[in-house]
């Protein structure tokens, strides 16, 4: 059901853990729905120098967190912001349709962490271009 890439990132997740004094933190998901992602970033000179995560969730949620943190490392905040859930899923060589919401969570986790950083810096928060979170959270947690 999962691609080799997903299984690789699930079994050998990159960047697991917390950053001690993170510049930004984003927590998304809901334990009721079976997945929570917490993304930590360090920012230096507008560039994400480190990203880590902790995730409670299924295989796809863990792999998506791992891949998302990989993708944002070394990117400017602007470039990191542009990383879509589709990019995460594609980098994982695809996700089962029923699991696409995991990549959405990862995108949102990154966005939340970036906005957390911006808020701390006194900067205005950026707005979600495609606020798909609700629609997807519904399908993730269809009760």
């Amino acid at each position, binding site marked *: 059901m999962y691609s080799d890439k997903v299984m690789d990132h699930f*079994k050998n997740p990159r960047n697991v853990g917390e950053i001690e004094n993170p510049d930004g933190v984003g927590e998304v998901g809901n*334990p009721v729905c*079976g997945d*929570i992602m917490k993304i930590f970033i360090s920012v230096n000179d507008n560039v994400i120098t480190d990203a880590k995560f902790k995730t409670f969730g299924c295989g796809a949620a863990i792999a998506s967190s791992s891949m998302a943190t990989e993708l944002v490392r070394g990117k400017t905040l602007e470039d990191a912001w542009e990383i879509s859930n589709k990019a995460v899923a594609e980098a994982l060589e695809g996700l089962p349709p029923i699991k696409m919401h995991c990549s959405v969570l990862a995108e949102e986790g990154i966005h939340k962490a970036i906005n957390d950083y911006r808020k701390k810096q006194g900067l205005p928060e950026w707005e979600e271009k495609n606020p798909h979170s609700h629609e997807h959270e519904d399908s*993730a947690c*269809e009760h």
Partner: protein
Amino acid sequence: MGERRTIYLDHAATTPVKPSVADAMWPYLNNHFGNPSSIYRIARESRNAIETARAQVAKALGAEPGEIYFTSGGSESDNWAIKGIAFANRKKGNHIITSAIEHHAILHTCQYLEREGFAVTYIPVDQYGLIDPADLERAITDTTILISIMYANNEIGTIEPVAELGAIARKHKIPFHTDAVQAIGNVPIDVRTQNIDLLSLSAHKFYGPKGCGALYIRKGVKIDNLIHGGGQENRRRAGTENIAAIVGMGKAIELATADIEWHNTHIRTLRDRLLNGILVTIPHARLNGHPEKRLPGNINISFEFIEGESMLLWLDDEGICASTGSACTSGSLEPSHVLLAIGLPHEIAHGSLRLTLGDANTEADVDFVLEVLPKVVSRLREMSPLYKGGKEENSNV
């Protein structure tokens, strides 16, 4: 991690066909193929094979052969029982009583009937998954035409007080159906003394083939057909009979019910070793279902702070086949309705693991799981944002 052996601990999802059962089936796949409805010799051979199997199933249930109808499996049997009774008795009333923890084959059928104008009461269960017979008695109204309560739950293994429930149904003259798909071979069943009017079976849950089941219908019970057409199964279930599978089911039920005592002792011993081992080595773990009134092979356990599927993936990597919730819904993202019904919070329900042992499991299997599972749980907890390294000892998330 990574050696290639398979430890199958998902016997509630399906069981392997016993070699002697497969051998009994083979001639009917490879050689004897006559349509039992025809009149020539090779057709009569098929007919005899089916009637032998029917007698085997009847014997296992304490029923008459003429009360056993072969179907394509547990889901069809459940659909037939529920819809067949409901539609045949519509003039008497439109009320059906079932439980909150039934298999989807019952629940989704009841929901369908609700859309068709029937009223359904879903009796709740206690924290162990047990139905209180008094709740059943209270739910009965003048318009109740069917009571359907499962014999044993497929997820948490709880065994319901079926004989008591049957007696209540009998007292009120309401047909009583039980989904015994998980019970057969694990619990002695006698439809007469237990006042059961209809009972569903599925062969692949007791080391028989997939795609074959049966519905016991007590003589005199008024029920509509589900599959109309030819005159097979005494005009009650159309379709050319699946002879090979029916023969396999007959053989399998004979084997499964011949040695319930041995089977139970063997399985329960192994199960308890595994269960105790888990509870001793893994903190924040709790058993779901009833401590004693449960199927001998069933363990259902919730591990806090982690999610079930990621456990399964790691276990699969080690060759261990397990399940979270019921197999039918593992594609779904909703937590199990059974775990919610016994009062688990969603997030704990998400972290549940079902291990169901079978005849071929060994102590070595158990020991291997006890070696692997604690590592898997702690690995996942370490990456869980809910887990604070044991400091949340008293939390209930």
